[in-house]
């Protein structure tokens, strides 16, 4: 299954696809309004990009600085080379506590590592506390967006899910009442939570603290009631200084949802006496990506989701069509690094329009990287034979004026003479599955131009003052 075939499934419900498209575009418009209200927004993007570039260029040193500062704060720091080690470390911490009830706030890293199924398999109850994540956890689905995990669902779907799992009235679909039901349900989980797991938005090398941004307050409530806090972060979450947060907190929520800032921007630095704080620093392919000069800028990502909201392909194919933890344009440049074969169709799930690059708050050249991944995939023979050979063929045709001219003549004639059922055969011409080919003209522009009379005199030249 590739992106296109998975997208086909999403597209079966045309009304829902339109709703999805328009809803995400609405978020993009909210982003624009928030961004235009900040005169220095473009300077902030430039600064954020510069700070992230600098951090990657000294990443080993900043990781050491962060570790030392965190340890001085009484925090336990763990290192995980891959997903399996990350999961094992967390299970180990939970078992040392004798804990079985875990509350978890949003963390794309733990999704990437498939932590939940691992913990559940080992008899640990893990409850996702972000409302959107709880909804999809009940439904046993993956998030379809990194900021709006349940954006593929309608309120009636949520109502049905809550009716089954929380006993709300059948047919209830009022967001206010459904949210209240989730609040009551999750309060009980928060109060009983023994260990709280959170993600990390920013890890400050200077202070050894981690910053978590939420609107719901679920990270704060979970962490501050539980005896143990485990914060999970990829190595790229580091920023050098506390004051760098001024730049990133001004960009993150405006880019993500058009809010001036998230409701809670929480700084977890030291555990209370008698409590524990652990930070798990994870590689899982990131150092490899750091070693790819064309693709390392993808590690600057702050996971705002702006590239998804603006992407014409994402909006009309849905997050699940990417079949990767991080969908959308940024996911399409992160995923081939993890598994080139499995994710080979994702860099092609783009029009290369560049809108993603335009909205990226840290100025990642996303569409350029999509193009470059296509080259890498072609070299590695990871693209379908039909695409490979048609590209090679087109390359030949377009490289020669004579062949191109002849090809054009042939195509114009063939389109006129061959039956529609053949020129639009779905098995042979994927382009025409949902489109009509234009009516073929009698002659090309070049043929027309060659027949025009030669101009007798040169056109009047503009006068240039001496």
């Amino acid at each position, binding site marked *: 299954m590739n992106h296109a075939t998975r997208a086909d499934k999403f597209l079966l419900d045309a009304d829902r696809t339109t709703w999805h498209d328009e809803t995400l575009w609405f978020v993009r418009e909210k982003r624009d309004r928030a961004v235009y209200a900040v005169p220095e927004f473009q300077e902030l993007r430039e600064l954020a990009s510069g700070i992230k570039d600098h951090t990657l260029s000294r990443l080993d040193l900043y990781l050491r600085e962060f570790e030392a500062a965190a340890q001085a704060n009484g925090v336990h720091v763990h290192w995980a080379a891959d997903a399996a080690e990350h999961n094992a470390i967390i299970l180990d911490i939970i078992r040392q506590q004798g804990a079985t009830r875990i509350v978890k706030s949003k963390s794309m890293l733990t999704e990437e590592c498939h932590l939940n199924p691992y913990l559940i398999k080992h008899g640990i109850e893990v409850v996702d506390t972000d409302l*959107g994540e709880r909804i999809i956890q009940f439904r046993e689905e993956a998030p379809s967006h990194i900021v709006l995990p349940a954006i593929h669902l309608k309120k009636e779907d949520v109502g049905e899910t809550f009716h089954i799992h929380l006993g709300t009235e059948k047919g209830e679909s009022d967001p206010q009442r459904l949210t209240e039901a989730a609040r009551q349900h999750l309060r009980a989980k928060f109060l009983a939570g023994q260990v709280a797991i959170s993600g990390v938005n920013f890890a400050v090398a200077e202070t050894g603290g981690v910053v978590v941004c939420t609107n719901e307050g679920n990270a704060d409530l979970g962490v*501050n009631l539980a005896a143990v806090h485990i914060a999970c972060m990829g190595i790229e979450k580091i920023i050098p200084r506390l*004051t760098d947060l001024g730049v990133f907190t001004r960009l993150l929520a405006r880019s993500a949802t058009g809010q*001036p800032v998230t409701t809670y921007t929480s700084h977890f*630095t*030291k555990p209370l006496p008698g409590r524990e704080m652990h930070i798990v620093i994870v590689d899982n392919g990131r150092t490899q990506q*750091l070693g790819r000069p064309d693709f390392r800028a993808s590690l600057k990502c702050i996971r705002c989701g702006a590239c998804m909201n603006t992407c014409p392909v994402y909006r009309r194919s849905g997050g699940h069509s990417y079949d990767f933890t991080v969908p959308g344009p940024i996911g399409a440049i992160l995923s081939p690094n993890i598994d080139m074969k499995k994710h080979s169709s994702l860099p092609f799930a783009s029009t290369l329009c560049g809108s993603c690059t335009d909205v990226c708050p840290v100025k990642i050249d996303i569409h350029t990287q999509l193009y470059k991944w296509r080259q890498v995939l072609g070299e590695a023979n990871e693209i379908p034979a039909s695409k490979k050979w048609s590209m090679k063929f087109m390359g030949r045709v377009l490289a020669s004026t004579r062949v191109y001219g002849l090809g054009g003549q042939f195509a114009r004639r063939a389109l006129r003479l061959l039956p529609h059922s053949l020129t639009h055969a779905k098995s042979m011409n994927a382009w025409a599955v949902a489109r009509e080919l234009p009516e073929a003209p009698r002659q090309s522009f070049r043929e027309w131009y060659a027949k025009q009379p030669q101009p007798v005199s040169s056109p009047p030249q503009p006068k240039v003052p001496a």
Partner: protein
Amino acid sequence: MSTASRDRILAATKANKPTETSLPTVPDFGGEATAERFTAVLTGIGGSVVWLDGLAQLEPTLRQLFPAAGRTVSPLLATSAAVDAHTPTEVLAGIDLAVLPGEIGVAENGAVWLPEANMMHRALPTITQHLVLVLDHRRIVATMHQAYAQLPNTGGYGAFIAGPSKTADIEQSLVIGAHGARSLVVLLY
């Protein structure tokens, strides 16, 4: 196991990192550091601002704003129930209203810096049903840059809080009162 991974990760990071680039200096972009701006932005994100004619007016103002408030806690009120870092979860869960002193207000986004020292208990600002932050209007700055520049450090725990807890996870419909406080009032004096 983690020592070996630590060394491997640090070695790979060192080997694969790009040529060093410089760390940009972040300028102070100036901006509007007014109570009016702070009020407009906070109101726009679901919070509210009420002016207090001096701290002496705190108690009557709270009675007026929350006539039906149940269990109220505050380090600023003599009458309040006691909460400290050791207060058990069951007691915290019954708190209706917390009134806490905020340190810095940020005009561009309506956020208020609340350090651990002002919280009574780390979970109080999110477990309480309603939250009031009391803020000296002279402590309002224009931007997050200026706010961070004023923070000596972030202590063990601290948060910028901008409005009440909220979510739009069901069909992008905004709902106030997700898991944390259902309402946020900033009392400016």
